[in-house]
């Protein structure tokens, strides 16, 4: 049986690192929105997760 990571934040892509505290998952800092979307897309493909937008410049890549 394949073991998957479910319902967990796999990665964070942010424009503003001060919005994030704590650990447990890698945080990627993007220079602008375009780059953020690109990193988000890549990470979602690599990790098999879904990109969510908190609408404050923070993207989460979550496994569902």
């Amino acid at each position, binding site marked *: *049986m*394949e073991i998957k990571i479910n319902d967990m934040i796999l990665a964070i892509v942010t424009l503003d690192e001060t919005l994030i505290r704590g650990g447990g998952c890698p945080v990627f800092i993007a220079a602008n929105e375009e780059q953020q*979307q690109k990193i*988000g*897309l890549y990470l*979602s*493909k*690599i990790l*098999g*997760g*879904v*990109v*969510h*937008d908190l*609408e404050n410049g923070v*993207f*989460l890549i979550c496994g*569902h």
Partner: protein
Amino acid sequence: MQEYLIVLLAATTAGFLNRIILLRRDYRQYPTYPHGQLTHLALGFIAASLGAVAVVAIAKPDYVAVTFLVLAAQEFREIRNMERESLGKLEENKLISRGTDYIEGIARVFEARNYLVIFTSLVTGAVVQIFSWPYAFIAAPLMIMVSLQFMSGKVIGDIAEIQEAKLSFSGTMLKIEDVVVSNVGLPEVREKILREGMGVLIKPKDDDARITLDSPGQRQAIIHDAVAILGTKVDVNEPEYMPMARKQIDQGYIAVYIIANEPDIEFLIEVIKRVPVIESSKGTALKAYYGRKAAD
């Protein structure tokens, strides 16, 4: 021997015929595999001959044989386990799973069909034994009709109204009419969802239907059947287009969204109408006294 031969023949034929008719290869694509069908036909034949032999054993009379036949009938319980196990195993590698409720429902149906086959051949055999063989032509079709009646459960179309719904985004939140479904982060994914996504609302007709649709197992069955027929754009690394069914918590209706390979909303509605109501999810609130009281 000669007199029993006609009973055996008539009863076994009636039972086996019943199994063939009940084993429809239907639009839900199950059982699709010739081997699976053969297994069920073989078991159906065994069930039919069990019912036929029972009549002869009683008529003879040979009660020891009857006892053994009852023991043999126990074997058919294994069919449920067999179906459950094989469907459960297949589930692990499916993009959109059936869900355990649906599997359990299918497994039970497969078991029940064999009992109907035994019953059909038993009744047909008894009729031939008591009256004469031409009566088999009356008893067998009658029993087959009764079996079909037994096996035709309700479908979603019976318990709910299904209508087209509009997909929209408020910010990054995907909404189907007024039901919030999920958060979609990437703008291109949002555009694709708006362009190709289809949404429907499933509005329950009464309180029983509402409870049925509440069950996540029932919703998974709806999604599975929709995807099995219309296809999906979900892939192993594309979970963003995962179809979803969410409840409008205040009104109790269900909003379903799917990005299908065949974007035909009218067929999506027809497919959902034909999804079976799962036995274990069926709501029975209106059958209870306080349920009826609370409903008004």
